[in-house]
């Protein structure tokens, strides 16, 4: 089943003024349920604008957005319920914390959903567990925590709504490698346990390669492609021309294939690369 679908989605900022700017143009895409999608694109390619359409924060200038089978904008009264179905974690989400305690901040979303206090409580604890926040941290003020911990509180605030689709805009921006791996690992675990749909916007091709199954590439407000990760990275040259770097493994394999070595250039993880090299070497021996 499709989780999210857009039809000829176009968005223009400040229409009919000198500042008019088309941020997203004619994007049609269908994302299947349970996929882990990496969203790639240059700064200003329209990624952030696109994802803000998927939970109705921005209204399309033209075109349509469907959540499941339902038209997002068909009934404005139901708009809020779609916001709970599609959870969006913004860039630098820690700047949006406001609760007196970590607990109350995480509880903001579920409380807005109108859940009973018991349900809210179990949602908060479950979300806190996913991002590795201890019981004692829940009673602290979010402003006492470190940067990485604040970010995890903010992500937990969206996880607690238990959305069918989870969208994260650069969740690891400005974190050290350790903090980055930790957050990405937590998201991966969450995905495996909940089997929900995830969209991860990232600048790091390594992060996308390690986690995502599908990749969505935006280029100059248009959809460049939406395909399986290995297919997308196999088009490394086109990506480089757009100013996007492919993972290091892909780069090595693409240039090997270019030199006429019979190797599959769609390999992008270290593990797959190892297997592919072994296969290639073995075949080479047999050939001799």
């Amino acid at each position, binding site marked *: 089943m499709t989780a999210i679908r857009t039809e000829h989605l176009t968005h223009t900022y400040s229409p009919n003024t000198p500042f008019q700017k088309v941020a997203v143009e004619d994007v049609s895409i269908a994302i299947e349920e349970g996929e882990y999608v990496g969203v790639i694109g240059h700064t200003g390619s329209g990624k952030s604008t696109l994802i803000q359409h998927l939970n109705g*924060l921005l209204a399309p200038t033209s075109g349509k957005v469907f959540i499941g089978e339902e038209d997002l904008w068909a009934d404005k009264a139901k708009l809020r319920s779609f*916001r709970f179905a599609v959870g969006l974690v913004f860039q630098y989400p820690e*700047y*949006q914390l406001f609760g007196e305690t970590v607990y109350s901040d995480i509880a*903001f979303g579920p409380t807005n959903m109108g859940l009973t206090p018991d349900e809210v409580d179990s949602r908060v604890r479950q979300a806190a567990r996913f991002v590795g926040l201890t019981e004692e941290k829940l009673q602290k003020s979010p402003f006492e925590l470190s940067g990485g911990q604040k970010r995890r509180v903010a992500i937990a605030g*969206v996880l607690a709504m238990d959305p069918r689709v989870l969208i994260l805009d650069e969740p690891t921006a400005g974190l050290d490698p350790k903090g980055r791996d930790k957050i990405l690992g937590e998201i991966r675990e969450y995905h495996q346990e909940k089997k929900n749909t995830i969209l991860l916007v990232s600048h790091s091709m390594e992060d996308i390669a390690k986690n995502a199954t599908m990749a969505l590439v935006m280029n100059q407000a248009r959809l460049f492609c939406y395909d399986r990760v290995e297919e997308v990275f196999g088009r490394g040259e086109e990506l480089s021309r757009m100013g996007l770097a492919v993972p290091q493994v892909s780069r090595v394999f693409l240039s090997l294939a270019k030199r006429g070595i019979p190797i599959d250039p769609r390999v992008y993880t270290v593990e797959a690369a190892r297997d592919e090299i072994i296969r290639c070497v073995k075949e080479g021996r047999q050939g001799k």
Partner: protein
Amino acid sequence: MIKDITIGQYFPGRSPVHRLDPRVKILLALGYIVLLFIAQNAWGLALGVVLGFGAYVISQIPLVMILKSLKPVVPIIIFTAVLNMLFVDGEALWQWWIIKITREGIHTAVFMAVRIICLIAGTSLLTYTTSPIALTDGIERLMNPLKRFHFPVHELAMMMTIALRFIPTLIEETDKIMSAQKARGADLETGGLMQRARALIPILIPLFVSSFRRADELALAMECRCYRGGEGRTRMKQLHMGPGDFAACGIILACIAGVVALNLLLP
């Protein structure tokens, strides 16, 4: 969206009005206000209207902008016009119960309305053609003599500059925080007054926190570059009076003199 609000109505351009020294422009605006208020009769006021209109034409600011600048003061204009119409004594034209409209009343009402319109349109031209930074720069230079009385002129101007600089940043920040809380189901559009006020808490707290953070960072950055107030500070962009500035001053002085003459000649 909140982003569409324009603060600081500067309209970039290269017209002679744009190129005037900001100090001169502030003084011209003051002169124009004086002119409007010393005009005692319709001829004097007409001179003011022509002068203001001419300045708009030279500045190449679209004339619709006059209407835009007047929009917020329409209630004040109507209010004063009605009051003048009803409460100025004189020859009655129409009477009903205790309400009386006089010939003099209508005259004063129209006169005052035109005066307010010119006042707003004229001073708006100053902000349309001067960037906020140039404006504060001009204000600082004009207030320089106050330094003798230990008035913190430079500090005041720096505060204004910083405030103006951060308005767009804070608007953007507010927009982002609002979106983020809406994504968590915050309901900002419905409910009673109390409910709406309470709905603002999740937006105001992060906004305050980030404003303080920004202020801290800015203070640190300024100190790192050895900022220590206005004493001995020189400027990269010096203000210079050009022939255009003197010409503009001449025009406004001539017009003020003209209005005074009209007041004396036509009682």
